[in-house]
Every structure is written in structure tokens, then in C-alpha cells.
């Protein structure tokens, strides 16, 4: 059942993406100030949003695990964080390439970029720690605690770097150069692409969660085999 949903979501996402790509390249004109490269925005920003939302969804699942001790929530939290991490990395890489052309630099230490990087570091540590723990209950407990601390920290990190960097002004940083108002045709494609990426992310989370459940099943069968033998 879950597999069918995942496949269904992937198909819808693929169709949306195909439509969007056609629109992006064949229909929409180049942006006045940025040229062709603004099209990266259609992947860069949705990936960032999906990543950020994902971390807080994982926070909810972690809290649910701690209150209910149901391993499904732990699997969901870990899967969501892994997929969010993938999209956060896409966010950083595409942003860097965009920045090289528009700002002339690969990287800058402004609030948004730095807190995105810190997010990636925190949740990469989360995934590394999960791999280091074999016992499922301990792993779930550790992961939930780290996720809660991590998400609370992300909020504080963003605020603090915002303060820090406004004391040391850098290049004017808003990838929506042009003041934040997008042409309606572009905005349409933007939100459609966001939907496509969101559906893709959900499909990946479903597949990953299924794998976590399988891993737990293998673990319990192994214990059974050891006990009986």
C-alpha cells in the first residue's frame, strides 16, 4: 500500500516536473537583470523550503516518539531528516552556483547561508550518530533528543547570525533580486515546482521509512534466531 502511494506520488511529481521544465525553458523569458541563471531559483528555493519544513516535521515526530515510544515515529523522523538533508545540500550547491554568477562569489557568511550550513552540520551529525548506535531503543532515544536540541538550536542560530551579520554588512542578499515580487507567470511555475519537489520528498520519505521498518524486522528476527539457536 505504502509502495503504491510512493509510486503514485513519484509519477505525479515527475509529470509536474516535466511540465515545469518545459515551461521554464520554452515559455518563460530570461529575467531582465539576471539572465538565464534565474531558473535555478525554481529548484533552489523550493529545496530550501522543503528542507526547513522537513526538520520541523521531524521535530514533531521525535516528540511523538518520546511520548508514545512507537518506533514508527522514530523511523519517520530519521527518514524525514535524511531527505531534508539531501534537499538542503541541493539548496547550498545550487545557491553557490547562482551566487558565483550573480554576486561573483561562491560563498558568503550571511545569516541565511550560514544558518543553512549549520543546519546541514547538525543533522549530518544526527545521521552519523544513528549509524554509530546499534541498539534500536537507545538509537531512537538519542536521535529524538538530538533532533529536539537541533531544531531549537536552528531557530537560535538563525536569529544570532542575523544579528551578527547585520553588524558586518556584506553584499545585499536577497535572491529575489527585484524586490520580492515575482512575475505571476514565474510565480505560478515556482509554486508548481515547489509542489513537485514536495511530492518527490514525501515519496522518498515513504520509501525510506519502509526501509527502516524492514531493518527493525531483520533485527528482531536475528535476535529470535540467536535466542532459539
Amino acid at each position, binding site marked *: 500500500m505504502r509502495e503504491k502511494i510512493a509510486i503514485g506520488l513519484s509519477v505525479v511529481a515527475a509529470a509536474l516536473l516535466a511540465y515545469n521544465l518545459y515551461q521554464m525553458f520554452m515559455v518563460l523569458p530570461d529575467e531582465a537583470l539576471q539572465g538565464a541563471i534565474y531558473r535555478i531559483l525554481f529548484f533552489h528555493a523550493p529545496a530550501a523550503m522543503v528542507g526547513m519544513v522537513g526538520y520541523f516535521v521531524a521535530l514533531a515526530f521525535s516528540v511523538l516518539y*518520546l511520548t508514545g515510544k512507537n518506533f514508527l515515529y522514530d523511523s519517520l523522523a530519521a527518514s524525514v531528516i535524511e531527505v531534508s538533508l539531501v534537499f538542503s545540500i541541493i539548496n547550498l550547491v545550487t545557491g553557490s552556483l547562482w551566487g558565483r554568477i550573480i554576486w561573483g562569489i561562491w560563498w558568503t557568511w550571511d545569516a541565511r547561508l550560514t544558518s543553512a550550513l*549549520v543546519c546541514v*552540520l*547538525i543533522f549530518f*551529525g*544526527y545521521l*552519523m*550518530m544513528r549509524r*554509530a*548506535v546499534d541498539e534500536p531503543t*537507545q538509537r531512537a*532515544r*538519542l536521535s*529524538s*533528543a*538530538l533532533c*529536539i*536540541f*537541533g531544531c*531549537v*538550536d536552528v531557530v*537560535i*542560530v538563525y*536569529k*544570532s*547570525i542575523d*544579528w*551578527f551579520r547585520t*553588524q558586518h554588512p556584506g553584499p545585499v542578499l536577497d535572491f529575489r533580486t527585484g524586490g520580492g515580487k515575482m512575475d505571476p507567470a514565474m510565480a505560478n511555475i515556482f509554486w508548481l515546482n515547489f509542489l513537485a519537489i514536495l511530492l518527490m520528498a514525501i515519496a522518498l520519505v515513504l520509501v525510506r521509512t519502509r526501509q527502516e521498518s524492514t531493518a527493525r524486522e531483520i533485527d528482531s528476527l536475528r535476535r529470535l534466531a540467536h535466542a532459539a539457536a
Partner: protein
Amino acid sequence: MRTVKHALLIARKDLAVELRTKESLNAAGAFAIVILVLFSFAFDPGPEEVREIGGGLLWLVFLFAGALVFNRSFARELPNDCLDTLLASPLSAGSLLVGKAFANFVMLLAIDLVSLVVFGIFFNVNWTRHVWELGVVFALGTWGISILGAVFGALTVDLRLRELMLPVIIYPLLIPLLIAAIELTKLLLSNGPPSPSDFLWAKMLIVFDVVFTALALALADTILVN
């Protein structure tokens, strides 16, 4: 009130053990001095540059030396099932956690002070002008490091890669605290007039400490499970 009393009991025990062997203190202290020496080769800062980077330098030293301290804090309870005994005792998980954090805090603060003195000598920095304010900043920053070190030290106590994992997990979480502490230390070392943003940093330090101590106490029973 009982929690505080129990926490102080645990802290006193840890400090007594540490003072007898001095293993963490010696290692961390030596490490701090070595890093300061290496920094002087790596950056060779003049007086102007020291004012700029001094704060950052000091807090990096505290962080790296601190890792040696909080790595040991729960790990030293593993032999002879001491940790299980502590968890089975009537002490609440919260008091155990805060007690350990407080012991870390005292040890780290000692390392901080030694590092500050050595830093002053190596780089010709006069830090005595605002020594009490500096002490407050050190205390607030070090408490943040200690409480997170205690929480994640407890969570990772029986992992085989604990020494590697602990810094990797804790350092990104400490970034806001570090920024605030570094800015304030820079100000206090350079003797400049405080600006409004500096009060923001002080607020940030306090908020960080309060939020994470509260979170640690709230999740203490999850973190320390028998």
C-alpha cells in the same frame, strides 16, 4: 531545592575524584597551552590583530580543551557499573545531569582562567581592566558548553566512537553561544565603549543558557534512562 542539593552533591563527588587524579584537568590545560602556541605560529598576530581575533582565539581554545573535559564526565562512571548505581539511586535524573554539568563547568572555568593568563602573556594583552565582566562572560559561555556537554555526554556514554562523535554533534549546536561570547570577549579585551548590539549578545548568552538548561531538565528522564 532538593534537586539543587543533590546536584551539588554529584558535582562535589566529581570534583573530588578529579582533584585526586587531575587527569582531565592536566590534559585539558596542557592542550589549551599547546593550541595557544600553535595559534601564535599560525597567525603571528600584531597588537591590532590580537584585538580583532583574540576573542575568537580564546573561545576556540576553550571549546577544544572543553571537549576533553566533557568527554570524560559520564564516561568515568562506566567502570564498575557506577553509572547504573547512580541511575538506580533516589537522585533525580535532572539533578544528576545538572550536577555533572556543574562539575564540568568548574573544571572548564579553571581551564579558561589558565588559558586567559597564558594568552595575556603570549600575546601581550591586558585583560585586567574589565576582569569581572570578563568573568561573567566566561561563566555564561562556559555554562552553555557544560550543559550541552553533559547532555550529549550522557546520551553517547556507551558509544564506541564517543570521542569522535561528541565534538561533531556539540560544536554546531554551540555556534550561537560562541558568536555571542566571542563578540563580548572582543569588546572587553579591546577596551572599547559598549554599543547597543553588545547588550544583545549578553541577552543571547543568557537566553541560550536558560533555554538549553530548561530543555535538558525537561528531557533529563529521557536522556538518563536505566
